[in-house]
Structures are given as structure tokens and as C-alpha cells.
């Protein structure tokens, strides 16, 4: 019976437990770490003028566009589940001499279904005094969820649209040249809810549609095979930090079990 608690095994289990404990504090914050994606070298120099023509931008990419005051500038970016995106915009205004009053600028964010998304923090709207040279706007979006009720407008993985516009200014100032700088940073985090997945990202259709006769409709149903293969992985919901916690808990429990067993075999070694 003594052979049950062989020392090398116990040592191995102890090491594994220690290694896990050393990892745990990292496992939590590591996923919530600020890791802006590596910045692509190219600077984006264009902006769209509508949802359909919005210029696609990657988080971390620099955007610098010269425009006219009064233009509506559209960009789009893709966000994955668990991401929290932050927009920072700097507007270089025309020189004070050519302006006639304060100018209010607003940045609006829309999801793939063109539903307006609120900013949880930051100055989404700001007013520049007539003499100010630059104006800064910020917007911190909500964390993107893996799944949401169809009836809610919670942020989901997919395309997001950014619209920058002057929302209040003297009419005389329309058409004057401005320069806008946009940067998007994405902070990765733990996606909620854990074991859910949106089957198709909220990326809108951009091709022209077609109408059918009312009877001749049989739009492609999702293939049954794809359904079945998708099912297993949905249940597993890898990767989730719950896995690490549960595996670590199992290891600790095994360790504690072995320890408890040893305690009953050689109580004198522990208590004398």
C-alpha cells in the first residue's frame, strides 16, 4: 500500500500544481491585456461618403484624409468578439481668419446593420472655438459580445462604421479645407457569453440585390452537414479561460487528494 504515494509522482504533481498557480495570475489579465494589433505600414488617405462606399480601415492603421468642412466621412472596420474598440480623431481646422464662429464636430459609430452604437466614454461631440486650431474627439465603444438576442442592439462581431461630420457650424464656414486623423485601437478581452457564437458576422451585404416572383422563393437553406460539424465545436467553446480554471482546479484537487492520502498514512511525519 505504501507504493501508492510514490515520491516522483507526487513531486511531478506538485510541480504541475505550482506551475499552474504561477500561471493563474497571468491567465486572468493576459487575455484582457492591451495588445493593439501590429500597425500596418500603409497610411489610409481616403474616406467614403456613404455606408456603401466607406473606406475599410484596420485597427492600428493610421488614417489621414484632407476634406472639406461639411463633408460626411465614412470608414469601416471589423471587430471580433471580445474586442473593445477606441477611436481617436484629431481634426485640423482651417485657420482662424477664414472662420466665422465655433464649429461642432461629431463622430458616430454604427454597427453592420446601421444601428447607432453608443460611446461609453470619451467626447463624441466637441466644439472648437472660432480661434482653435485643432479639435480632438474620442469614443470608447462597448465590448463586442459573442451573441445577443435578435431584439437587442448589443455590439456583435462584424463590420462597424465610423462617420465623422460637422454637425453645427456657421453656414459661411462650409466647404473650407480641413484635415482629419483617425486611429482605431482594439483591446482584446474575454468574450461574453462564453459558449455562444454568432454564426454569421454582422457584415452587411454590399452587392445589388434582385427581386423574385413571390412563389419562386427558396433562398438557400443552411446545409445540414455544416450544421452538424458546427454543433460539436459550439459546445466545446474553445478557447475560454473557464477551461484553464477548470483544468487547474482538477490538478489542485488531485494534488490535495494525494496530500490527504499521505496525511492519513504517515500522520507523525506531518504533526511531530
Amino acid at each position: 500500500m505504501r507504493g501508492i504515494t510514490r515520491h516522483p509522482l507526487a513531486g511531478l504533481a506538485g510541480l504541475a500544481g505550482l506551475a499552474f498557480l504561477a500561471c493563474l495570475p497571468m491567465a486572468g489579465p493576459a487575455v484582457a491585456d492591451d495588445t493593439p494589433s501590429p500597425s500596418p505600414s500603409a497610411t489610409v488617405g481616403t474616406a467614403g461618403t456613404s455606408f456603401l462606399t466607406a473606406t475599410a480601415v484596420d485597427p492600428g492603421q493610421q488614417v489621414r484624409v484632407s476634406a472639406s468642412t461639411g463633408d460626411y466621412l465614412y470608414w469601416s472596420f471589423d471587430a471580433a468578439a471580445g474586442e473593445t474598440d477606441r477611436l481617436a480623431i484629431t481634426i485640423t481646422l482651417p485657420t482662424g481668419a477664414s472662420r466665422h464662429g465655433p464649429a461642432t464636430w461629431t463622430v458616430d459609430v454604427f454597427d453592420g446593420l446601421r444601428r447607432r452604437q453608443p460611446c461609453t466614454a470619451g467626447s463624441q461631440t466637441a466644439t472648437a472655438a472660432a480661434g482653435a486650431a485643432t479639435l480632438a474627439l474620442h469614443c470608447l465603444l462597448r465590448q463586442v459580445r459573442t451573441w445577443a438576442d435578435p431584439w437587442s442592439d448589443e455590439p456583435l462581431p462584424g463590420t462597424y462604421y465610423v462617420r465623422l461630420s460637422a454637425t453645427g457650424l456657421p453656414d459661411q464656414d462650409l466647404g473650407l479645407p480641413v484635415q482629419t486623423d483617425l486611429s482605431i485601437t482594439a483591446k482584446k478581452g474575454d468574450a461574453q457569453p462564453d459558449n455562444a457564437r454568432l454564426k454569421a458576422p454582422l457584415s452587411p451585404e454590399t452587392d445589388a440585390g434582385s427581386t423574385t416572383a413571390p412563389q419562386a422563393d427558396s433562398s438557400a437553406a443552411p446545409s445540414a452537414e455544416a450544421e452538424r460539424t458546427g454543433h460539436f465545436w459550439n459546445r466545446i467553446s474553445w478557447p475560454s479561460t473557464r477551461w484553464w480554471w477548470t483544468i487547474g482546479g482538477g490538478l489542485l484537487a488531485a494534488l490535495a487528494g494525494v496530500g490527504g492520502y499521505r496525511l492519513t498514512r504517515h500522520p507523525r511525519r506531518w504533526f511531530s
Partner: protein
Amino acid sequence: MIIRRGPAAGLFLVMLAGVTALGAVPATAGEPTDGEAPKVELVLDSSGSMRAADIDGRSRMSVAQQSFDEVVDALPPETQLGIRALGSRVPNSASQALGCRDTQQISPVGPVNKPQAKASIATMRPTGWTPIGLALRAASHDLGTGETTRRIVLITDGEDTCGLPDPCDVARQLAAAGTHLVIDTLGLTLDARVRQQLTCIADATGGTYTAVQHQTQLTSRLNQLVRRAHDTYRQTPRQVGGAARCSAAPVLKPGVYADRERFAEHRWYRVAVSPGQELRASVSIALDRRLNPDYGVLLRAVSRTGQEIVRGTGADGGRTDVLSTGLRWSDQQAEDRQEASPEPSVSSASSDAAGDGMVCLVVSNSFSAPAGVQTNPGMPLELTVDVVSSSPAPGGPSLGRGWLLLLVLTGTGLVGGLVIGWLARWRVAVWKEN
């Protein structure tokens, strides 16, 4: 990337392989083209007032000519550029009736012969009246009709001196005529009335307005607009006409659609959604005219029996270009029924909708305009419809997380070890006794 592009990417690879096999790569290969090139027409005011020398100390005309030359030099090879002048032939001293019909095509819309285009630009002289409305109509005619976006860039230093037709109304009519037309305007003066007219023309077609003060600014803006035509001209929605009630509504497949909606009008469309599918729809209405300051747009999904299933609302106030909203819907009760039992469940709005697989979409708005603003044609409406497989609601978590979990598991392990150990000791003791 989360954008779905599997089949398209595959197709592209196949096409690429084909092209490489052929050895020669045509300029337009690789694009899902319908054969049309991006089409832009520059419309330049050549009226008498262009003589004024107030841009960088040079005359407006010479500044515009230099910028045109530079734009022609930097033109993307695929782009078809046309040039039209207004007020270039009949002098101011002639009769208004004659002067107000004076618009002339300098260079037809087509592949540009650069030396020839530049030579004809150089011959333009500031001369006569400013018939902007007429010139816009002619420019739209020059660009012709087709599936892709057409762009007009209007450069002027004065308001329309001919009165009728009002250029702003002309712009709205042209935009509503079926071809997707965008008019960008550039003003060579800071005059208030010119600005009003040009912003009105731009807003009516989803274009932009720029006040030009320097020659370099004019060149870079013109280049930007011409490039923009090259980048975005293909994304034209399909024209559709919504019905006044659901049963007569057109059935839409996934895609982007364009329509017009007047104030207080309801427009109905239908989409086929089978069980296990999710309907996604979004709508945006462009504010193409002067409106009262607060407004809203409502998009509702309605079942065949008239029950509302889900709605999206958008509301705003103040200066903006479009008002948009969207909705998602999937028949979750149908999914539950499929999984649980085949018995028919209580009839509800959603099961009604799933009954024949048709969901009606209705778009309404709460716009109003000050007196004197035309309400016809309606405001431009853009509708996006998508049908994807639905995402079922997640169940409860099957794994744990947190320090308490570790504590509980460790405690359980310890207790288990102790119990097994005590059992083993007891058994050894019993065995020794025997």
C-alpha cells in the same frame, strides 16, 4: 478576417490561375466587371465673372485651366472623363434667352486623349451667362444611363443667372431619374448665395461642396473626387419600388436596394425567411432637402397576419446626411419546437411569420419640411437585406472559473484523499487482525 469571402476568394484564385496561364494580364482583369468604366464629367463655369483675378493673384479661369490640366495628367487609365463648359460662347451683351442656352461639350465622355483635352481646355475664355441647371441636365445626358455610379463635378464662381430651371431642383430630379448620379460642387468664391446654391445641389445628390481659395487646393480636391469615382462607382444598389401593402410587396433576395419614400409614406417589402434562418435588414434615408430639425425613421418586420415581430428605430436632429436603422430576427420558437417536440405550439406572431416563410418589412418616416420645399420626388431610401443561418441562444456555462472554484475543488480532493486514506488504514488494520 471575419468578412465572408470564401467562395469569392476561391473564384478569384481560379480566375488568377486562368489569367496567369494566358500570360497576359488585361488592365481590367480580375474585377467582376459588367464592362462599364468609371464615368466623370467636369462642368466648368466659363461665364464673364471668371475673369476676376482673386485666387492667388490670378484669374479664376486660369486657375481652373491649370487644375484641369493637372487632373487630366493624373487621370487613372480606366476612368472616362468628359468636360463641359457653360457660358463659353454667347457673350454677356447678347440676349438672356440666347445666353441661357449656352452650354458646350469640350471633350466627350470616354477614354481621354490627353493632348487634345488639354488643348480644348486652353481655348476656353470667360464669356457669358451661367445656366447651371441646363448644364447639369446636359452633363447627365453626356454620361448616359447605366448600372454604375456617374459623377458630375461642377466648378463655378457664380449662382445660376438664368433662374429657370432651378439647378437644385434639376439635381434632385436627375438623382431620382433612376441612374445613380452624384454631383460634387466646387465654389471659386466665398459668396453666400453661391454657397447656398452649391450646397443644395450637393446635398440633393449625396455629393460634397468645397470652397476653393487656392489653386493647389482645387487640384488636390479635383484629383480626390476623380479618384473617388474610380474607387466607388460600382457599388450601385438595385432600384426597387416598395408597395403600399404587404400582399403586393416585391420579394427581395439578399442585397442592396434603392427606392424613394415621400413624407408620411409607408413602403412595404417582403423577404423569404425559412426556419433556422435569421433575417437582417437595415434602411437609411438620405436627407436630400431642407427639413424641419427633428426627424426619425422606423423599420418594422411584420408577419403575414399583421403582427409586428421586431422593429428598428432611428432618430436624430440637426445637421446630418442620412438617418438609418436596422433589425435582426430569427424564429427562435421554431428552433425550440424542432429541438423539443414536434407538437404544434401556441400560435404567436413569430410562428405566424414562419408559417409561409414570408416576413414583411415596412419602412416609414417622420420627416417634415418647411413650407415651400418640394416633397416630390421622395427622399432616397437605401435598403439592405440579408438572410443568414440563425444563431441559437447559448445554454448555461458547462465549465467553471474563479478562485472559489479552485477552493471547492481542492477541498473536495482533500476530503476525498482523507477518506480513501482512512479507509485504507482501516482495511489494513482489519487485515492484520485476521
